[in-house]
């Protein structure tokens, strides 16, 4: 392939963020184009049809399925309340009665003389989709939802757990290379998105969650601590539904990894501002990365939508695999010929001058572009 490198994650002071907010099934859209919305505002609502409960009526009456119709007290389409008698059979001149009652309230949707079952559909339950970010509705998706736009800071992480939350940014680490301990977590982080440096121990993450933090953003955590926080292992990188008290977002990866300076500097600049965060990560089939979005009305800096720059001599890159994992560098050469690396693989490479002065040859697949 002509472009064998991993595009970097967006870390930008000011970009146009578009969020498409869709219902899981068709429903009603409650906003109009141009509406100003806050994160908790409901944009669209749908009714999720209730589940149909099957009552084994003939079996309960001790009758043959095809005899069921003669014992019925309800018909298809009737509304019933929990406990209502659906059918009744009598024997011995009415001395013995067998009854079958509705286990739930709902509408009788099906009476089946083949199986002898009665199906009661429960009432639908509402499903709503909120705006998630503060912004303006720019497009309506009929019966599905809406598109909300905002201009502001966008920081994409590499991996996260936990869903959408909203809170004030609170930087607690002394620097991008510092590991956060429980002692670093102030008492007044309730409702905040806590930002650490290179790493955070499990105890530190738990301490923040116990004090009411809604999110925790940090360079990396070790595998063991992620398992400890979730209470189980994660096999496949499809996340976002975990019932964790605070959404966790890693900006660099697993291990204790210095947060990229650019990311760190932006977080310190955003201190005190309100962020919408989401830990949802999906590496396969439509990559979704965790994100921190901070709408800003007067943001200066690198405007425009997140781009996908090309790798060229002079590009700033970060190495994302051993043996120089996490090290920044500058591309000094892009050899056209394939080269053999120490593993024995013959691959497309680049030559980079690292921040510590070393010049190394790296597979292009093992670097990410740091967008300027």
């Amino acid at each position, binding site marked *: 392939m002509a472009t064998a490198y991993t595009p970097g994650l967006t870390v930008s002071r000011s970009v146009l963020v578009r969020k498409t907010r869709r219902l899981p099934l068709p429903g009603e859209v409650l906003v109009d184009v141009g509406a100003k919305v806050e994160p908790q505002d409901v944009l669209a609502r749908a009714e999720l049809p209730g589940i149909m409960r099957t009552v084994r009526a003939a079996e309960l009456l001790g009758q043959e399925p095809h005899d069921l119709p003669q014992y019925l007290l309800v018909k298809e389409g009737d509304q019933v309340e929990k406990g209502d008698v659906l059918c009744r059979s009598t024997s011995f001149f009415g001395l013995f009665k067998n009854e079958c009652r509705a286990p739930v309230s709902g509408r009788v949707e099906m009476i089946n003389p083949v199986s002898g*079952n009665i199906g009661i559909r429960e009432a639908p339950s509402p499903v709503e989709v909120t705006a998630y970010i503060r912004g303006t509705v720019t497009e309506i998706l009929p019966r599905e939802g809406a598109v909300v736009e905002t201009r502001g800071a966008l920081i994409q992480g590499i991996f996260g757990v936990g869903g959408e939350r909203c809170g004030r940014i609170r930087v607690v680490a002394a620097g991008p290379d510092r590991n956060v301990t429980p002692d670093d977590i102030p008492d007044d982080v309730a409702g905040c998105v806590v930002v650490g440096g290179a790493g955070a121990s499990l105890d530190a993450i738990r301490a923040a969650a116990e004090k009411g933090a809604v999110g925790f953003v940090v360079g990396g955590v*070790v595998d063991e601590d992620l398992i400890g926080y979730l209470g189980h292992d994660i*096999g496949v990188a499809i996340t976002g539904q975990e019932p964790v008290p605070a959404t966790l977002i890693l900006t660099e990866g697993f291990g204790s990894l210095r947060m990229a300076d650019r990311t760190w500097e932006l977080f310190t600049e955003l201190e005190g501002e309100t962020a919408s965060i989401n830990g949802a990560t999906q590496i396969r089939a439509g990559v979704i990365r965790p994100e921190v979005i901070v709408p800003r009305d007067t943001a200066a800096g690198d405007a425009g939508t997140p781009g996908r720059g090309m790798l060229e001599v002079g590009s700033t890159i970060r190495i994302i695999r051993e043996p120089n994992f996490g090290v920044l560098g500058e591309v000094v050469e892009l050899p056209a010929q394939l080269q053999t690396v120490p593993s024995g693989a013959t691959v497309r490479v680049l030559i980079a001058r690292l921040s510590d002065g070393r010049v190394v040859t790296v597979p292009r697949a093992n670097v990410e572009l740091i967008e300027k």
Partner: protein
Amino acid sequence: MSEPTRILATDCGSTTTKAILIEKRDGEWRLICRGEAPTTVEAPYDDVTVGVTNAVREVEELAGLTLMGENGLLHPADGARGVDLYLSTSSAGGGLQMTVAGVVKAMSAESAERAALGAGAIIMDVIAVDDGRRDWQKIERIRSLRPDMVLVSGGTDGGTVSHLVDIAEMLVAADPKPRLGGNMKLPVIYAGNRDARDAVRQLLDGRVDLRITENLRPQLDREDLYPAREAIHELFLQHVMQQAPGYSKLSTWTDAGIMSTPNAVGKMVQTAAEQLGVQVLAVDIGGATTDVFSVFQGIYNRTVSANLGMSYSICNVLAEAGIENIVRWLPFEADRWSIRNRLRNKMIRPTTIPETLEDLMVEQAVAREALRLAFEHHKMLARGLMGVQQTRTVGDMLSQAQTGATLVDMMRCDLIIGSGGVLSHAPRRAEAALMMLDAYQPEGITRLAVDSIFMMPQLGVLSTLQPEAATAVFQRDCLIRLGTVVAPAGTGKPGSQVCTVSFGGRTESVEFGEVRVLPLGEGETVEAEVVPAKGWDAGAGRGKAVRGTLEGGVVGLILDGRGRPMVIPAEPAERAALMRRTRQAFGLPEEV
């Protein structure tokens, strides 16, 4: 149309779209070149044809041809322009995802599972009347899954009706929605008892897009999967492919329906087994899933382990196999937590590749476990029909064999074909051979091969229209023959003899625990006699000699005396030493 001479075929994978160009030159079909580009079914492109065009452009540059015009591919081939035939396979956008249902879990539900897997699907769940879950649990499960289609089976013809009505009622109750296309009705294929068709139709017609096909288990002792598989393929083309971004456009370019990638690989494996007259095991290990295909006793089976892979799913291999099973394949003592972090980082940056030898060894250790686990899964499903009464002879009475025993018999396996990045692109071919050897532990005499550049999908779809071209390219350009392994089954004491192998006037003696690789190049063959020691079996029974032709390859002739099942020392230093000795035998670097 006159006989084609230039054929283009693409495979739209979840990550990469691969194009191959083959031509008939001097009366022979040969691979000319290959191009690839990122798949573009996701935003911002949302159009698979963008990736196809990019991959074809690369082919054009390499071959010095013009294959595409403004409105797609140029037909027919005319000098340096155009192609005679264009075909495509696809697994992009998550492939074909299905839920299957049956009456009895180990019978009709399992047959339905085999039908769907054989048609190239990923199974999201198997629902059965007797699967141990309460009805409401099953209904909630059916509702929460959003499959591309559902396959319902159960009951022999003339058998149960009420259980099938139960399943249909469950579908009505759950009211499931298809994964793609919000307003589309969910396609449901009914392949159960003929007598229950009317009752099922009465319940499901109008609520779902119902297709009725022949019963896939018409009798207890007969399985007829073909009609259900064809129905799945047809619905895949009509529904799933039409909903996926850009596929309706792509299907106007192709000269035959787009086939799901695993379905196409399966076709190629079946063609190979038939034409070579062999019992074959094939694997495609990808980033997210591992597919295993086999043809034993003329029966084709395919399974997919949806969460065993080398990048997106690498941590699931870790979770299922456990860290100890992974590090046991390393020739050095490893820090477990460092390896765990390393695998997590591979999961979140799946396109990275091992730069150091140590990193490569770790990935290949994981690959052995992914291959092994997927193979265990395959053996469980590739089995004879359960619940079938058998006429047993006096001899049978003495054996413990039961109905539903696996069809996979490694002693009878003639050929193992490996495919997928970690095998096809291993820096050294001997590494691919060793990974397959460790994971599958073939017994007796078995040939090993890898798919050179993973073109079995394209050749599979091609085999449906141009079998001669597909077979020619498969034999000449696709398969890289690694060599033959001789591995008697049994166990012994260190230093005791396992067997002797005599060929070309020489006799090699193999000791227990030893692996030896002898030079025997591609295209070379030797007539050999393998005489197993007492208690060892090379294919003809314990201690009985086996004669056969041993084929060479890029690795050579492998004499594997490590025993079957292979014993790996528990003591870490001893274990690492065994791994170093084995690597040394294969000429692989031992030290990191």
